[in-house]
């Protein structure tokens, strides 16, 4: 019988994972402290609700932003080492149990967030919303045991890579959209509005957020296709409305409806932001909730 101590003792990836989480945590603290201080220095540099002109100034880095990027990137690198360490130790990739899924999401969310943070200055302050969301996974993973689960026979399949990878890109893009949506909502509070004074106007953030959501929709569609091909190989049917399939289809449909509603009606900015967050929350429960409340989730039929 494996004791808890045995499992922890063998899990040489844990120190790397913890270090990565610390880096993410520091990034979160720095970004919050940064935006709290920034209005005083940046006030007037860009009017809050004017349209966003990405001038040279906007493309330069604000005081704390480079440090945030360095910290998030370090977190990504440390978690990558943790993943590699575990991979070598147990002989297969992080695809099977919840500990592995969370760990690999911490890597991919961080990676895609860091790339976007670097390339799209307009979204940077939304890290105030996005990084704590990443941290929800970080705290969760700390509560789980790093047990290893054998790779099921149906996982020896190239479509696994496509399906899992595309799904991770989808969730990351959704997270970025959610960060921006969160800023739109937070700006309605007097307390938080000053934090985002240097960001582009809400209309611009809304456009940017939905741009990420359309891209997320493309990756979600690709994930569904790759998943269907894999399901056909693995279980002899491409679609059967199992818990995870249904949940992610509903998620896809919700996002599709959001996109249509937005160009059919004058969806108020705040409602649009709530819709984006709803898509993200739905995705979150699809990814991390479904395996719990249904025996027939992918976890069940391996």
């Amino acid at each position: 019988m494996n004791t808890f101590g045995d499992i922890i003792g063998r899990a040489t990836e844990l120190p790397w994972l913890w270090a990565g989480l610390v880096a993410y945590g520091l990034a979160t603290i720095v970004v919050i402290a940064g935006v709290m201080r920034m209005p005083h220095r940046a006030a007037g540099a860009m009017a809050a609700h004017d349209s966003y002109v990405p001038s040279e100034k906007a493309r330069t880095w604000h005081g704390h932003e480079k440090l945030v990027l360095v910290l998030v990137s370090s977190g990504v690198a440390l978690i990558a080492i943790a993943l590699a360490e575990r991979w070598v130790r147990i002989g297969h990739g992080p695809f099977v149990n919840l500990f592995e899924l969370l760990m690999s999401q911490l890597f991919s969310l961080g990676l895609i967030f860091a790339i976007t943070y670097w390339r799209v200055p307009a979204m940077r302050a939304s890290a105030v919303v996005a990084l704590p969301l990443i941290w929800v996974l970080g705290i969760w993973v700390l509560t789980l045991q790093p047990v290893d689960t054998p790779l099921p026979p149906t996982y020896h399949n190239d479509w696994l890579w496509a399906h899992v990878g595309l799904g991770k890109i989808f969730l990351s893009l959704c997270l970025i959209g959610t960060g921006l949506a969160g800023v739109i909502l937070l700006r309605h509070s007097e307390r938080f509005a000053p934090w985002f004074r240097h960001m582009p106007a809400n209309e611009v953030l809304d456009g940017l957020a939905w741009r990420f959501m359309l891209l997320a929709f493309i990756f979600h569609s690709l994930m569904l296709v790759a998943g269907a091909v894999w399901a056909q190989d693995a279980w002899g049917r491409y679609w059967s409305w199992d818990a995870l399939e249904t949940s992610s289809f509903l998620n896809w449909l919700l996002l599709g409806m959001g996109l249509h509603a937005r160009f059919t009606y004058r969806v108020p900015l705040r409602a649009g932001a709530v819709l984006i967050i709803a898509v993200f929350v739905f995705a979150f429960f699809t990814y991390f909730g479904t395996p719990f409340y249904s025996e027939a989730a992918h976890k069940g039929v391996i």
Partner: protein
Amino acid sequence: MKKFLRALGSIRLALVGMVLLGVGAALSYDNPAGTPVWVLVAPLALLAINLFCAIATNPRINRRPGLLVFHLGLFAIIVLAGIGRLTHLDGQLEITEGSAFSPDELTEVKKGPFHGDGLSKVAFIQGSYTVEYNAGMVRGLTHSQVLIPDGRGGMISRVVGDDRPLVLEGYRFYTTYNKGFAPVLTWMPDQGEAMTGTIHMPSYPLFDYKQDSNWTPPGGKPLRFWLRLDTGLRQDAAWLLDGKKASGVLVVNAGERRVELLPGQSLRLEGGSLRYERLTSWMGYKVFYDPTLHWLFVASVVAIMGLGAHFWRKFGVRMQRTHESSITDTPVASSGRMP
């Protein structure tokens, strides 16, 4: 007419269709027994009509190549999925090692009304198989050998298993966790001809503890069989399930009598005698046929590529503009424009 088509193709109706499809999907969540299939079919039919009319009449779709390809792809997927349901076949098969496939042996068959008779052209012989088990009885890879006629009177041997199905005439045979052992028995009646057959014992190792079955010889009394297996099964370490290396003692209960038979041994019973020839195995396959599979794949990939192209045009163009002006993509602004 045009007005009517436009109304049928309105985006508001699309939204209604999507909500209904969402409700249908939610009702089908996890396949609860008793959910009728029309909860999905009706909204899909509505969406297909709506989509068709929108593609025909709405310049916001049909003048933008990327979006047009995407929505045509969605339409194609709905139509193909419909054709698939009308022509598909699903079933289960238990086939004994060394025996030839026969369509009559399929069980739990579900098929569409327009399913053809291609299954009668399928021919193969089941060979032996092995299944790897990790410690703790966690199933690993299955290697199932099949022999397929090469068309010139010979046979080709192929190994299938797990996510590598045997595909013949479009029918896909997937190995399953359902497999087990089968004693080969010969019944030699006092009068008449001897007959040889197999008894499929319950799935192994799932029902390791209850390897029993019943059979009544023609004109005889019911017999109860129990198979005591030696397969090298281990809970604590990895092992290989290999029919060739397994042996089994057949315990026959005939009324009050209890007799243990080794392969080759016989038992005298009322009306004839029973010989336990040898131990063999059976493999359980899931059988699947859907002629639209490849087309569905093509339609969905082309659709998504269309959407990708639309995205590229819509935002690629904007990106360049942003350097001169501002990133504006407000809902109101974009609804009237055609990037």
